């Protein structure tokens, strides 16, 4: 007999995933349908087989080695960090070294007391303050000079621009005047030409009239 696929509903019934009402309906169907009952029995047999699994014990092992490995790793990191910090301290502060009684100070190779060290530091501090104040004054003066230069250069530029504008204006006026003169000359020429033309016509007319008078018997 060829095996066939069981419906999802049958599996849901066998796995107990149906609600009570649906399960009751399905049970009624099983009672009425022998083929369905066989399917359900097969499903239950398979599930029973799978459910027969009995847990095997885990073979002995030690999970602590993972933590140990990690801790060792972290330990190494801390050691490296501590070593780096120590190296930094010794490289940045070569004039200080620790002793069993406390801290001793050396200045240019010679040992000095804490009070002397403090006094020198204070001197150093006051010298630094003075230097800083001087520097500020210098910077201010420098800035003032720079500001002045800037103002002068701006004024120069403005003056130059004003001159250029005036030159351009004069040039424009001159061009306009020249244009106007040319037009005036043109008009005078036109008037002269017209007058000359009129004179010629009058003369011609006069000549014609005179000729006619002479020809009258």
């Amino acid at each position: 007999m060829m095996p066939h696929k069981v419906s999802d509903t049958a599996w849901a019934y066998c796995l107990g995933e149906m609600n009570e009402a649906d399960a009751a309906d399905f049970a009624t169907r099983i009672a009425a349908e022998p083929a369905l009952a066989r399917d359900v029995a097969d499903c239950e047999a398979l599930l029973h087989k799978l459910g027969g699994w009995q847990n095997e014990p885990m073979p002995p092992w030690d999970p602590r080695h993972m933590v140990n490995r990690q801790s060792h790793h972290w330990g190494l990191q801390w050691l490296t960090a501590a070593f780096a910090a120590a190296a930094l301290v010794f490289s940045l502060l070569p004039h200080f070294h620790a002793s069993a009684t406390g801290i001793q100070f050396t200045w240019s190779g010679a040992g000095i007391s804490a009070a002397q060290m403090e006094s020198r530091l204070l001197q150093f501090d006051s010298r630094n303050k003075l230097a800083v104040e001087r520097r500020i004054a210098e910077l201010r003066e420098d800035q003032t000079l720079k500001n002045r230069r800037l103002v002068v250069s701006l004024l120069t530029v403005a003056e130059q621009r004003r001159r250029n504008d005036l030159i351009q204006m004069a040039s424009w006026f001159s061009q306009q005047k020249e244009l106007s003169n040319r037009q005036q000359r043109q008009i005078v020429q036109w008037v002269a030409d017209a007058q000359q033309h009129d004179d010629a016509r009058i003369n011609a007319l006069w000549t014609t009239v005179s000729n006619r008078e002479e020809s009258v018997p």
Partner: protein
Amino acid sequence: MHLTPFPSTDQTLVAKALSGSQRAWTKLVRRYEQEVFNHALRMTGHHDDARDLTQDIFLAVFRNLPSFRGDARFRTWLYRIAKNRSIDLLRKRQKLVSIDTLGDCPELSQAGDVDHFHDNCEVIALLRLLSSEQRLILELKFFQQFTFEEIGAQMNTSSNTAKTRYYAALNKLKSTSEANHDAAQSL
């Protein structure tokens, strides 16, 4: 007698393990190691592979412990890692075992009684008939009792797809068992 009226929660043990407590970590592992080992045994079908896989899973859990934010249950998170590791291993091996090995189960430890050995052997032989994905879905639903929603989330599918695949896997097992049974009877 050592009494622990209020056993530590997984979250507490995780927090302690993260702060470097070996004891908390060991406790957490002991709580789940048998469950994970049996999962690995069903997935691989080999005792030694299962032991290695279990250790590999817990190593991955330990390494990823700082990323566990407690959004899901620790067990769900653990099985997500277990699922990935199992699939990786099965992909690497790609062992195809013949149906002829049904009933023959040399890979188990045989540490328990004969019936127990026989039952487990049968289950492993059945599971070998499935693809790794089908085996995994059966493992998560039938043996680990995860909901279809949880399985869907683990396998990046919908819960309905997970359900369909689960029933398909069961159908495949049933069909193959019946075919084997018929073949045995005809001999």
